[in-house]
C-alpha cells in the first residue's frame, strides 16, 4: 500500500469500502437474487410437472376412448351376466327360482339349499361370490332329469354342477332320486 502512495487513513477507507462491497454482495445474493431464483426454479418445476400431466392427459383420454370402443362387447356381456342374478340376497331368490325351473321341467318337489358361500381367490372376481347349493329331487325319471339338467346348464351360464348323484328308488324302478351340488357365481351386493 505504501508503494501505491496511500496513507493510513486511505487504507482504512479502502478497507471500509471493501467491507461494504462484500456486505452488498452478501445481502444481494442472500435476500434478493437467491429467493428470486428459488422461486423461479420452483415455478419451472411446477410448470414442467403440470405440462407433463397435460400431455399425458391427452393420451389418457385417447386411451379411454379407444378402450371404451374395444370394451363394448365385454361391457355388454358383463351387464348381461350381472343381470342374470336379481337384486337381493341369493338365499331369498335362488331356491324359489330353482323350484320354479324344475316345476316347468315337470319335476315337482325340487328343493335347493345353500351349502356355503366363499369369495374367489382371483383378484378379477373380487366383487363376486361363489355360492354352493344342494339341489334335491326326490323323484324323477332319468330322461326328464337329463333334459332338465341340459336346460339348466344352458339357461344358467354362471352355474356349474360339481357333483351329481342319481339313485334308483327301490320300490319304484322307473324313478330315481337325484342330488345335485351346483356352484353359482353371484356378484356381491
Amino acid at each position, binding site marked *: 500500500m505504501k508503494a501505491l502512495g*496511500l496513507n493510513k487513513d*486511505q*487504507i482504512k*477507507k*479502502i478497507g*471500509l*469500502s*471493501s467491507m*461494504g*462491497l462484500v456486505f*452488498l*454482495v452478501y445481502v444481494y445474493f442472500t435476500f434478493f*437474487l437467491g429467493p*428470486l*431464483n428459488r*422461486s*423461479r426454479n420452483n415455478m419451472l418445476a*411446477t*410448470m414442467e410437472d*403440470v405440462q407433463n*400431466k*397435460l400431455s399425458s*392427459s391427452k393420451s*389418457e*383420454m385417447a*386411451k*379411454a376412448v379407444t*378402450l*371404451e370402443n*374395444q*370394451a363394448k362387447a*365385454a*361391457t355388454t*356381456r358383463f351387464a348381461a*351376466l350381472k343381470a342374470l342374478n336379481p337384486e337381493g340376497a341369493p338365499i331369498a331368490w335362488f331356491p324359489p327360482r330353482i323350484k320354479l325351473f324344475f316345476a316347468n321341467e315337470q319335476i315337482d318337489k325340487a328343493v335347493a339349499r345353500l351349502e356355503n358361500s366363499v369369495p374367489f381367490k*382371483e383378484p*378379477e*372376481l373380487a*366383487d*363376486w361370490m361363489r355360492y354352493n347349493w344342494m339341489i334335491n329331487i326326490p323323484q324323477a325319471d*332319468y*330322461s326328464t332329469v*337329463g*333334459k332338465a*339338467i*341340459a336346460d339348466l*346348464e344352458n339357461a344358467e*351360464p*354362471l352355474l*356349474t*354342477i*360339481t*357333483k*351329481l*348323484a*342319481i*339313485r*334308483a328308488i327301490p320300490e319304484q324302478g322307473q324313478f330315481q332320486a337325484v342330488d345335485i*351340488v351346483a356352484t353359482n*357365481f353371484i356378484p356381491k351386493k
Partner: protein
Amino acid sequence: MAIHLNLLHEEIREQRQRQRDPLKIGMMVLIVFGAILFGYYMFNAYRTLEIKAKLSAVQRQWVKVEPNVTAAQKRSAELTDIIKTTKVLEDYIEDRFFWAPFLEKVSRCVAPNTQLTNIEGGIEGNTQEGTRRVTLLIEGVAAGREPRAAAEDLRQMLVEQLGQSYRDVKIEFKTLEDLDTLINVGGTNTAMAHYILTVNFNPKAPVKPAATPPTDRGSKKR
C-alpha cells in the same frame, strides 16, 4: 530552459488528494456495482414474472382438463376391470363340464339286460392347473346267461362312447360279483351280476389325430 514556479502547490496537492479519496471512489464503485446488480435483479424478476404468468396459464388449463382426465382414468380402470372379469367369467363358462351330454351317452350304453342303480360323482381338480377330472361310480346289475360278459359289454361301450367326447377315459370294475338270485327276463330265469364301475376322464374334448396325406399307392390303383 524556462523555469516553472508552482506557487500553488499546496492547494493543488489537496485537490488531488480529494480526487483520490478512496472512500469516495469506493462509494462510486459500490453505486455502480449496485446499479448493475439491481439491473440484473430486475432482469431476473421480469423473467420470473413471465414464468409465473405462463404457470398460471398452464394451471388454469389443467384445472379445466383435470376433471375430464380423472373421469377418463377412472373409466379406464373400470373398463379394464370389466374386461378382465368378463374374460375370467367367460373362461369359467367355456370350461364348464356339461352333465347332460354325459348322461345321454351313459343312457345310450345301457342295454336291456343291464340296469344302473346308482350314478354318483363329481368334478375334481383345477382347470387352471390342468388337473380337472370327472370321477364317477356307476353301480348296477347285469343279467344274462353270462352276466359278467354283459357287464363287460357295458364297460366297453362306455369306454367307446365317452372316448368320443372326453380325454383319457379310464373305466374299471371296482366290483364285479355274481348274485345268487335269478331274474326273469323274457320268460326265462337268468343269472345276475352286480358291478360297480369307476369312471375317470378329463372333460376336455379328445385330440383328433391329424389327417394322413394321400399316398402314391392310392393314385396308382386308379
